[in-house]
């Protein structure tokens, strides 16, 4: 079986092509999905790619969350379908309440673009099983609304349940609470992160490494073994 992995394009999405390419390089069948189409076209998993969907008007991800495709994705994610939200996709997942907390403007207010080292804290989610806990990876980071925030109770709960999936290393780029770069839901099928693994899947571009490919090989393994 070839895993079918969908990538949603909203108006203002920028990294959908990169995500589709990463899916293909990892060995799955990439399926473009359109924000106005409720139909997920028999995909086994969905990636919400980075960019500025609906121009980030109102709040990042707030308008996209009410698009027709999200209606289906929210229902399917709750039923166990794997969903990965990268950057703007992570913002959409918090706005959709598939992940707890919210994303705020960076504490220094600047757009930041750099290679970012991360520590993999949880290698048991649908999207991280090809990594090992404690592993350090480097992928590009680029955002202006990357300050992850949640109340203390939620943060404690995330820590206690091992749901902090990635933490920033070498300095916190945006004021994110507890250096959180990525989290998962309780079931482990929905993962959101601010940095961009889809930009680190080929040696010639991005960081020059392929540290990001593990997300896409992880989900393929998960789907094939399911």
């Amino acid at each position, binding site marked *: 079986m070839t895993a079918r992995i969908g990538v949603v394009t909203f108006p203002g999405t920028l990294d959908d092509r990169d995500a589709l390419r990463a899916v293909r390089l990892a060995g799955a069948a990439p399926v473009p999905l359109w924000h106005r189409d409720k139909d997920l076209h028999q995909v086994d998993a969905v990636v919400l790619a980075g960019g500025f969907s609906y121009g980030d008007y*109102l*709040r990042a991800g*707030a308008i996209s969350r*009410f698009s027709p495709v999200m209606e289906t994705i929210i229902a399917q994610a709750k039923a166990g379908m794997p969903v990965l939200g990268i950057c703007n996709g992570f913002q959409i997942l*918090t*706005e959709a309440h598939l992940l*707890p*907390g*919210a994303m*705020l*403007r*960076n*504490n*220094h*207010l600047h757009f930041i673009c750099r290679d970012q080292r991360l520590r993999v804290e949880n290698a048991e989610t649908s999207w991280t099983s090809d990594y090992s806990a404690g592993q350090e990876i480097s992928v590009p980071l680029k955002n202006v609304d990357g*300050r992850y*925030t*949640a109340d203390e109770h939620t943060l404690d709960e995330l820590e206690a349940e091992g749901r902090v999936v990635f933490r920033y290393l070498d300095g916190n780029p945006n*004021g994110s609470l507890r250096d959180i770069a990525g989290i998962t839901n309780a079931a482990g099928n929905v993962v959101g992160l601010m940095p961009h693994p889809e930009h680190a899947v080929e040696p010639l571009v991005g960081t020059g490494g392929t540290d990001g490919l593990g997300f896409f090989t992880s989900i393929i393994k998960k789907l094939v073994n399911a």
Partner: protein
Amino acid sequence: MARVVVDVMLKPEILDPQGQAVQRALPRLGFDGIADVRQGKRFELEVEGPVDAAALARIDELAETFLANTVIEDFTVRVETDEKSEEPK
């Protein structure tokens, strides 16, 4: 047509770097004595038909589900009644 105003503010405990940036600029501009600034959003909704309890309840729901993210923001809803206040200064 009646106007309903929805004000959205970051919760007091949430860091507001935009407000801080504004506050830090004030002394340079000669405005002293402003201890703190927080920046929010104001939505003006022009409502067709009467703004009765049912309409207000719907606007409240709209504010809670969409205009504000209640994880990080508080909001207030009020009907603007004073016509004169709409005159530009």
